[in-house]
Structure formats: C-alpha cells, structure tokens
C-alpha cells in the first residue's frame, strides 16, 4: 500500500474517533448543565476538546449554547466538529478507491449533515441535544458501515491503529483533567454527579455500576478507565488493540522497521498490563498519565517515520 494512503487512512480514522469523543462529551455535559443549581462550568470540556484561543473561550464558557456552537461549528477552532470532519473527509477523498464506497458515502453524508443549517438552528434556538444526537448517529453509522464493509487487511489495520490511538489519548485526557480539577477542589471527590458525568461521557457508567456496586471511588474509576480489559474505552483495551492490529502488518519486506516499532508497542502493552492502581498512585496519577500519553505519541511518530514515509 502507498505510504500516503496508509497515512490518510490512519488520520481519517483518528479524526472520526475524535469527533465521536467530543460529541459524547458535549452531550453529557450539556445535559448536566440543564440539571444543576450552581453555575455549570464548561472549563474542563473546553480544555480537553478545543484548540481555540483562551480569550474567546473565556467569554463563552458559562453559556452552554455558545459552547456547543463553538465546539461544533467554529471554523477558527481547529478541533471543532466541522473542521475535523472536513479533514476526515479530505483524507477519505484522497483514498476513496481504497475504502468501501458505502463508507465513503457515509462520511460524505456526515460532512453534509454537519453543514446542514438546521443543525445550527437546533443549537441556537431549539434543543441542542437533538443536533448532537443526529451527529452521534452519523458516527455510529460510520462504525457500523466500516465494520460490515471494510476488507480485513492492511487498510483495516491502519484505520484501527488510528482509531485506538486516538481513543486511548482521549480517555487519558478526560481522566487527567477530571482528576486535576479534584486536586484544586477536593469537595468534588464526594460529588456523585461529578463522577457520574465523567463515566457517562466515556460511555462507562453502566459498566461501572455493574462492576463496582455501591458508590463512586476514585480508585475504581482509575481502574476502569485505565486497566479494565473489557471496557472498550479503557487505555488497556486500546493498547491491546493497537498491538493486535500492528502485528498484522508484519511482512518480510520491512522487517527492520516493523521490529523497531513492534518493540515500542510491545513495551507499552506490557507496562500497562503490569500496572496496578497502587503503582499509579505511587507514581502520581498525573505523572503516570503523562508518561502513558508520551508513549502513545511516540508510537504515532514512529508510524509517521517508518510507514508513512514522512521523514
């Protein structure tokens, strides 16, 4: 496969996954902003998911509709849904003949849906959750279509690596930001709705209730989000999958590159497998998460170098 194509597939997949994460987080946070007596703070959400400038965000951070609009439609925010879906589509367009026609159409529809003026109207004048639901449905269609139409080979491997790399970084970011807020405001530790929203925005609320009966504990949340192998948004689940899809790329033609990257991914996979909640706490959760993220970025860089010919 062409290096350029591999790179586009990987980024296409990262962007779609990113949009999924942002949309879900927005939905949960918007809902909780309608269910609070104090002023709802959008600060953590904005910090996780926007790349825009600070002043602009400070001006809108207490107005839920404006935040949703900013994160969905603002062209100056590099991480707005409209911008990442445009990028996802441009990547898909440049590799159109490698992905299933159905998948291309799906992504194309997603793009046109984001641009539909009606969506903006829902956000500004009507019920913003309707707009978010419409978009989330587009992502779900994308994943369903990808699963049932894409060939299982190199293409799928690069797309999956992109997806899980993006997902693990997102979960780590969300966890990190939430725990940082606690260190400055310990009252949150006992605030049930705070934890509930964290879990809901990761889609892990129901699993948490089933796994750990009785109340929210910081330890249990860390365990779920980083170490639970059955939770599809946990860091370990994503790293396992990165390893699994990467191993399928093994070929005699570029064994050196393969071995070198395989070493890094394997090391990360082992280290996370033998991590416990206690060892994370001993190291300091924030430090641990930063280290984990750097490992993941390093894998991205090596892919760039060895597989996408960007040197």
């Amino acid at each position, binding site marked *: *496969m*062409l*290096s*350029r194509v*591999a790179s586009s597939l990987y980024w296409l997949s990262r962007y779609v996954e990113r949009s999924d994460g942002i949309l879900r987080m927005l939905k949960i946070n918007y809902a909780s902003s309608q269910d609070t007596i104090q002023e709802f703070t959008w600060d953590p959400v904005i910090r996780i998911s926007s790349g825009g400038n600070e002043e602009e965000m400070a001006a809108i951070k207490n107005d839920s509709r404006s935040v949703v609009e900013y994160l969905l439609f603002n062209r100056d925010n590099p991480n707005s849904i409209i911008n990442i879906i445009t990028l996802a589509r*441009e990547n898909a*367009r*440049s*590799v*159109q*003949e490698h992905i299933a*026609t159905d998948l*291309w*159409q799906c992504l*194309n*529809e997603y793009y*046109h849906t984001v641009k539909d003026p009606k969506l903006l109207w829902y956000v500004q004048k009507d019920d913003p959750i309707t707009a978010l639901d419409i978009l989330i449905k587009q992502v779900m269609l994308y994943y369903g279509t990808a699963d049932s139409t894409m060939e299982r080979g*190199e293409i799928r491997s*690069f797309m999956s690596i992109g997806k899980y790399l993006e997902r693990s970084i997102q979960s780590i970011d969300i966890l990190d930001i939430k725990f940082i807020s606690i260190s400055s405001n310990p009252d949150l530790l006992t605030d049930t709705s705070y934890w509930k929203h964290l879990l809901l925005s990761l889609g892990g609320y129901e699993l948490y209730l089933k796994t750990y009966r009785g109340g929210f504990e910081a330890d249990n949340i860390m365990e779920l989000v980083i170490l639970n192998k059955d939770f599809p948004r946990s860091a370990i689940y994503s790293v396992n999958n990165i390893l699994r899809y990467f191993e399928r*790329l093994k*070929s005699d*033609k*570029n064994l050196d590159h393969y071995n070198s990257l395989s070493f890094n991914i394997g090391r990360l996979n082992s280290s996370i497998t033998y991590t416990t909640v206690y060892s994370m706490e001993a190291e300091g959760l924030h430090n641990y998460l930063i280290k984990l993220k750097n490992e993941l970025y390093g894998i991205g860089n090596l892919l760039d170098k060895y*597989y*996408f*010919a960007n040197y």
Partner: protein
Amino acid sequence: MSGVNLNTYQNVPDTWDEMYISDNNLREQYHKIVEYLKKESASDLNKKEELAKRLFMSQGITFTVYDSGEGIEKIFPFDIIPRVITSSEWGFIEKGIKQRLKALNLFLKDVYSNQFIIKDKVIPAALIYSCPHFLREMYQLNVPHDIYIHIAGIDLIRDYDGTFYVLEDNLRTPSGVSYMLENREITKRLFPDLIPQCKVRSVTEYPSILYKNLQALSPRAVSNPTIVLLSPGMYNSAYYEHTTLARLMGVELVEGRDLVIRDQKVFMKTTTGLQQVDVIYRRVDDDFIDPLVFNPSSVLGVAGLMSAYRKGNVAIINAVGNGVADDKAVYSYVPDMIKYYLNEEPLLKNVPTYSLDDPDQKEYVFQNMNKMVIKKTNESGGYGMLMGHAATEKEMEDYKKEILKDPRNFIAQPTISLSTAPCYMDGVLQPRRVDLRPYALVGPDGISIVPGGLTRVALKEGSLVVNSSQGGGSKDTWVLSS
C-alpha cells in the same frame, strides 16, 4: 393527474432536433420515452430531478469551487431526459471514429519518426514545428505497440441536416467518462424499467476494457504488472473521475509525490518499501509530467519520468506529445491524413476551418466575422473563444488585434447550429443545444468504443457553448440496440 405537457415544445428554426422531426412529429427512437413522460406529472418529474441531485451529492460526485478559503461543493448540472442515438447512427459514428483514430495514430508515429507526411508536402513543416505541443523529446522514442492514442474523447456535433461533424479530437487526457458511467446509474434509478424496455446498450464495460488494454502495455513481461493512475491530487476538478476509474479498475491512484525514479525505473513508495510501476495512466498534462524536462516548477509530476519512458521501462497513457495531433490548426489536415495514410475517404466530416496564418483566408474571416467562431489553437474548455454572432463591434475589433499579434494561434470556423435535444426545465420540455463525446479505447487488439458517451448540453437558452466551465450540463446518452 395529467401528464407532462409536450405541446409547448417548439423546434428551433433551421436546427436538427434529436426528438422531433417537426412540431408534434416524433422520431421513432423517442416514442417509448415520450409515452413514459406522458404518464408522469410535472411534480413527479420535479421529484426525479431532486432525487438526481441528491444522489450526486450523497455520492460525492461533485467538484469544489474554492471561494475565500471555504470549499463549496457543486454538482455538474444533469438533465434527466436521456439523449437517444439509434443503432444505425451509432454504427456510422463508430466506423468514422475508428477510421479517424487509425489515421491520427499513424500521424503521431510518423511526425515523431520519419516525418513522411511532411516530406510528401501533405502538411507544411512550419505548421508542425510551430505547434507548442510538438515535443522534440518524443522524437524517435519507441512507445509500446506503436500506440500513442489509447484513450480519445472525440467531440461530435450535428448540423441542421443531422450530419455529424467532428468538432475536436481530444487526444491528450480527455475527461468526463465517469459522468457517462454515473449518469447511467442515476437514470436507472429515475426511470425504472425504461432502459431494458428501450433496449439501451450497456456502458459498464468501459473500465474492464481500459484495464485490459493497460495491462497489455506493460513493458515487463510479468503476469501481474503494477498499473497506476497518476492524478494531480484531490484539488483537481476531475478528481472524482480519477478515484472512480481507479476504483472500478482496481488500480492504485497515485500522485507525483508517491513516485520516485531509480535507475531509470519508476517506483512507488509503499508501506513495505519501493514497488516498481509498469504502466502509468496519467491525468497530468505533458507540461507538468517531468520537471527535469518540461515545466521545472511542476510538483505534480515525477523528476526523471521521461528518461524511464525513453528507456522503455514504463508505459505512459496517453503517450506524451499527442497535443500535436489535436492542435486546432492541425485539425484541418485530418481528412488529408486519412487519405494519405489509409487511402480512404473520411467518413466523419470536419467543420470547415480557416487558417488565420493564410492572408486570403484571414481576409475572408475578417469580412465575415459575425458568422464565425474563432478559437485559439491551444486552448480548451471553451476559453478564449469569440462567438461572432453574439459579439459586439468592439469585441470583434479587439479580437482582430489579438489575432494580428500571432495569427498561427487562431483558427476560424463557420458557426454551426448545433442540434437540440429536449431538456426538462421549469416544468416543461425545452430544446437545448447538445454535442456528443464518445470514448474510444485503443489497445494492441484494436479499437473499442463503448456504446454511449457524454452528451453535453448548453443549458442557457440559445447558447451554443456546451463546456462545463461555461455553464454546460450533461445528459445520459442511450445507444439503442438494433
């Protein structure tokens, strides 16, 4: 509910209409379509029009117009009423195009080797050597199977009596074939059952014929040669077509930056290292194909590609340098080429063409400018044209000055009143001018022309210009089986 009213359709005077012989006197090939339309109400047809637009949009069959950084998606306008060609008309077109392509291909072989046609004074040497698309780099370069023109999109028009004329031979990188394929797919959805009822011949074979031809051109004798389609990239207006063709043939779509030359061989950069490329179907113009030989600032091509080509290590489709054969001034000699190389009478007529390099002809053209279409010899897409019947005095005077600066660069043709075909507009059928571009594929086993083509429509009332860049649209084109 009453059907669509067909009584308002008015033939344009002195013009061949594809559907009506005269008012209310239908040509036979349109009977079934008209019957069908009579059963549909205007709102049904409006719905079909909407459906067509939606299908084009959702499949991403669009081109992007960049306006202040924001890409605006547009669809190439599509008229839902198919244009019909009878089997006998098609038989004639097919023979005519094959004859023409045979001669043009021999001409290219000749001008790039022995130049008998110049030595025998059939074509003046000055005309050939003054053509900017005559490339000395191609001289004595052996192309596989002596085929220069692998894909041609010859534009045909019909005069008032229905005679077919060749307007242009597009022998470089003709585009639009994906619209031939997509228009048919969409028409299948718009008019269920009508296509089999009318016995319309299928166009779906195009990609497999092209693929077979490309495969046969591989210089390496390997069972599975690497074939790529070289595109300028996603910002090119024909990008949709490039991806469609690559997908339908199952070949790799590459850009210049994906390719690299080593030891006069072409390789593509893959995730598992370099892989040798045997055949390049390129949609990049000659000028941009190799910065070492042609335009040095081009980033669309591959440095060193021409050396690999000359060495015979790669096949390029279409051959480089074909522009000398579809130059608008060389065009007027194509009937002579047919006589010279094939000893045959040309089947398809040329539009009479005046060379502005010739003082007598130039004088005649200047006297009769309001009846002429004047074109630049090396422009395409309907740019730089003067339509005499619609031009003002001042425009004509300005154009004359342009011509006098470089007469070789212009030709003039009498205004041909293109044939009209019915289009569905504002709830009724209206006549609009059309042309026809069938796509011919030339391979080592001969010439095949897929029964169909692209019918382009001048959507503005009274307009004679069908180019998409000048507000033209397209129609599905039906060739009936006998």
